């Protein structure tokens, strides 16, 4: 079954795109898209980068660490932006919590 609904994104969350939301590069229009039921979303560059880092193993804090290092930007500001973007996606129903890793 799908992960819990009403996901609240925090620094410790390990979000991933659910099976029904697919991040894909659209060769025709030269943009990244998220394909979802009856929807095509166009994430911006940063959103794409965040989603590519959300592999189910990294938590949101670690994603912010990576971006802060890469862009030499203040971590707190980046973290707030990342959480806002992911929460927006979660509220639309296009984000799941990664399942606990089986040992």
């Amino acid at each position, binding site marked *: *079954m*799908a992960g819990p*609904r*009403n*996901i609240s994104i925090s620094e410790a969350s390990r979000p991933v795109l*659910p*099976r*029904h939301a*697919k991040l*894909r590069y*659209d*060769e*025709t*229009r030269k*943009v990244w*898209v998220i*394909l979802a*039921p*009856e*929807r*095509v*979303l*166009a*994430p*911006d560059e*940063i*959103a794409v980068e965040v989603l590519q880092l959300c592999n189910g193993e990294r938590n949101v804090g670690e994603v912010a660490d990576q971006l802060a290092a890469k862009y030499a930007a203040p971590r707190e500001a980046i973290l707030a932006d990342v959480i806002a*973007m992911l929460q*927006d*996606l*979660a*509220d*639309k*129903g296009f984000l799941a919590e990664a399942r606990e890793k089986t040992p």
Partner: protein
Amino acid sequence: MSDVPLVTPPAASDSLAVLEKSRSTAETFGIPLAVLLEITHRCPLQCPYCSNPIELDRSAKELTTDEWKKVLSELAEIGVLQVHFSGGEPTARKDLVELVKHASDVGLYTNLITSAVLLTREKLGELADAGLCHVQISFQGIEEGLADRVAAYKGGHRKKLEVAKWTRELDLPLTVNAVMHRQNLHQLPEIIQMSIDLDADRLEVANVQYYGWALKNRAALMPTVAQLDECTRTVEDARERLKGRLTIDYVVPDYYALRPKKCMGGWGRQFFNISPAGKVLPCHAAESITGLDFLSVRSNHSIAWIWQNSDAFNRYRGTGWMKEPCKSCEFREIDFGGCRCQAFALTGDAANTDPACALSPLHETIFKQAEAEAEGETNRFLYRNFAGGTLESENGA
């Protein structure tokens, strides 16, 4: 199948815009993001509001497996991202798993729009393995008495509930498609609850649109203004209450509106569908407009060529074809004069303003007629079938 709203955009935010062509002029258009494939008109249900044309394609005319595969490859190649397998009942085709597999192989996102009554758990599993991304199941009501009567299919409602459960057990996302009209609108709150109980991700509250079969059944289906207002309140309340849990798309009937709907995002601008026999159509009701020559994928032309150059697509594309009051209207690029099929059905000329628009000289008459029908006593259905329809018996059996 029921009416299928496509790519209804949620509120766009900065980082996550909805990909919709925000072109400034009406005359330019790109390849649609999603295409509806009506792979058969065969269906075990006989819903009186079916969006298929009155004149249904017989199975002998249907595209073959290889022809559909070629269509799927071509669609992916020209930039279509999603396909909806619909009908009729798409699972009535024995090659559905093969078609879904092929669509996945060429990179298309696949939706199944189904009545569910022909599905087995095994078949659904095969579809999931073939890469199916999303299942949309139509519901006719909340309990079998009404639901099975609307569909004229005994045991249908119970089967739908079962298939919905399997869908979630297979970890496929589920959309409940509830087609609403006067005789079931009172069940909307329970339908919303049912969607939650079934663990659906999305609910489409699709009020019947009145063309083809539904137009023939208008007197039995048209809701009252009061019902519709209540429906809108219920949807708005549920959307707020269930944010992040259940996405609700809402399609209102336009007879009671002041502004017409931007039907299909404008003729030939964002959408086409392919009929069982392979015709490329600007909307699933387009064949109801006589005098237009719709080209088939069996013709010598590519799908992209048909979309861009065929007379049928260019006839009502943009604004050049418009007459008054559309021609000089400030909303002409907002709603493109509403729905061409509805204009044709109600006025006899598809180039007239859709009477759903308050600026149409016929608006008042149509509105009054709808209101009178909604208050009427006619509840008998004319069921959809290949024989041109069968009237429900007096005792509702």
